[in-house]
């Protein structure tokens, strides 16, 4: 009797009592389904997060004031104000840094009342450089962004985000109008085109003024909150980071990197950190889902033990007509494997269907959700369900093979 025939025989026995076989495999069905769903939904959520981070630009480098551990949060994120990063630092990087650095945008941020005619809102504003439009890869819808001349001379010009413009002026043309930030008047020279929600913040609710204007007229500071630099290709990011660090150390007279008063972060680093967090979460969820597989396994073992008991006479007969112990073991092992494998297949089908439904629902809510079902996760699910059949089937099967033929023949 070959493998195929043993399997067909096991199949016959299983479909003989359909309800019971189905209930037996239900644990495996649910377990495999849960693992598939968790893996695919986890991967979908992960890709959603990573795509959002990537949309910020994978060839961007951020420079923050204050030292930090490589993988820890920067000091500024902990609310510590470090005042060592300056406009000149940015200019120096642009002038003497790696040629691969295409643009340096510098930022200070503040929050104040913004008034246009009778309309008044409280909003964050950003003082930045003319290079902003290049570095952040955006464009104006109306008018123009402020120039380098205005950037340096603290020109009283403002560029509004699309949303802010709507709030202040509605459908009216804002160009040439005057708004007040705090107590300072600015001329609207441009409106940034609509960008929508990206990277956890609404890009449209913004107000941009020249960095020198923000520093001198509104905030009364001479340092930067942060810088962003655009590198020509993602491959050159590491080289650019090195050159930035070198220049800033020279600028700040720092000897070793232990004493850095700034931190340089690339988007790639951020992606790594996020990936490792989401990976850990995914692993954790899969581990929990796998528990139900183990529970299912014990269910199989329980039923197989009962089956062996029930079929004691059959086992005795099979031994009497010449079955070796190993052949009896094999027969029952195949039965439990066929049950778990079948359960695995059903679980995979249900899991994939539900994953597809989840992805569809996420898309309907407007998320860029990738349906991630890898062939490896399907193969793994098949392998695991066969493995469970083997692991939890071996004890009942061994018990069957060790039954005494004479006593079994007489068993009622």
């Amino acid at each position, binding site marked *: 009797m070959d493998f195929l025939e043993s399997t067909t025989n096991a199949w016959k026995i299983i479909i003989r009592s359909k309800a019971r076989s189905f209930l037996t495999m239900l644990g495996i069905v649910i377990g495999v389904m849960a693992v598939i769903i968790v893996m695919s939904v986890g991967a979908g959520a992960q890709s959603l997060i990573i795509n959002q981070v990537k949309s910020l630009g994978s060839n961007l480098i951020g420079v923050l004031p204050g030292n930090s551990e490589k993988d820890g949060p920067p000091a500024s994120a902990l609310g510590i104000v470090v005042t060592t990063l300056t406009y000149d630092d940015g200019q120096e990087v642009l002038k003497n840094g790696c040629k691969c650095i295409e643009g340096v945008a510098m930022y200070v941020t503040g929050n104040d009342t913004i008034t246009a005619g009778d309309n008044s809102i409280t909003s964050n504003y950003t003082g930045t450089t003319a290079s902003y439009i290049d570095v952040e890869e955006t464009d104006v819808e109306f008018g123009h962004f402020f120039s380098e001349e205005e950037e340096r001379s603290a020109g009283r010009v403002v560029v509004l985000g699309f949303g802010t413009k709507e709030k202040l002026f509605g459908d009216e043309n804002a160009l040439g109008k005057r708004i007040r930030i705090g107590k300072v008047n600015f001329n609207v020279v441009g409106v940034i085109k609509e960008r929508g929600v990206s990277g956890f913040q609404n890009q449209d609710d913004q107000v941009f003024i020249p960095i020198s204007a923000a520093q001198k007229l509104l905030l009364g500071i001479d340092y930067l909150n942060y810088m962003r630099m655009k590198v020509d290709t993602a491959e050159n990011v590491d080289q650019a980071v090195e050159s930035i660090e070198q220049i800033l150390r020279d600028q700040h007279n720092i000897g070793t990197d232990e004493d850095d008063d700034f931190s340089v972060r690339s988007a790639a680093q951020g992606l790594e950190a996020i990936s490792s967090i989401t990976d850990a979460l995914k692993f954790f969820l899969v581990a929990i889902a796998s528990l139900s597989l183990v529970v299912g396994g014990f269910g199989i073992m329980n039923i197989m033990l009962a089956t062996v008991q029930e079929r004691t006479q059959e086992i005795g007969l099979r031994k*009497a*007509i*010449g*079955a070796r112990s190993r052949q009896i073991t094999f027969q029952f092992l195949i039965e439990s494997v066929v049950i778990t494998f079948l359960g695995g297949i059903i679980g995979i089908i249900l899991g994939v269907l539900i994953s597809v439904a989840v992805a569809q629902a996420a898309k309907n809510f407007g998320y860029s959700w990738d349906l991630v079902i890898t062939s490896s996760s399907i193969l793994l699910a098949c392998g695991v369900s066969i493995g469970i059949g083997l692991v939890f089937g071996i004890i009942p099967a061994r018990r069957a093979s060790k039954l005494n033929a*004479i006593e079994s*023949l007489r068993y009622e």
Partner: protein
Amino acid sequence: MSKLIEVKNLKKQFENGDVITKILHGVTFDIDKGEFVSIMGPSGSGKSTLMHILGFLDTLSEGQFLFEGRDVSKLEDDELADMRSSKIGFVFQAFNLLNRSTTLENVMLPLLYTKVSKKERIERATSMLEQVGLGHRLDYSPNKLSGGEKQRVAIARALINNPDVIFADEPTGNLDSKSGLQVMKLLQDLNEKGHSIILVTHETYTAEHAKRIIRLKDGVIESDKQVLKRQIADNNDTLLK
């Protein structure tokens, strides 16, 4: 006639903790190929234990058991299983058929543990069932058959491996007398065709259908005689029981 079975001073005891139960106290006999032997004795005489040992289902405690000149007491479990598969066929009082398989599948069952191809298994089982007069019952489930038919299926199953010897353990015990007679006739016919048969029974009348009777009592052989007035299972035969 060449020797089929040679038993010398065979002893068997069961140990259950400190309690030792002696079943066979040293029995000695030979059986030739082609013989039809009844092993008789009351309950507790040790006849079932003896049959289990002769049928490779159990091992002896002391003495010697040669099957076709081969010392059986030295064989491993797997070798015993192979002997059961190739050398002998069993017929049980309780038929021991698988009710959820068809008659044909039941008869094919012993061949599952051999290298015979599926096609040949079906052919042989079909022809075997035809020989016992059940060629029209191939697809039946055994629990739709009468007792006599069931036992004929069991005999077909015992024959399928073309064994050297058939062990029949009270084969008529669960049958009405007419069916029992049919079964005895079948066994006698098989013996005529050259099959060796060992019949275990506690009924003298049934035992007398064999050519020789070995009587056991309390684990020893009481007598070992040829049957002088053999019962022949045909239409003139008295019904069994």
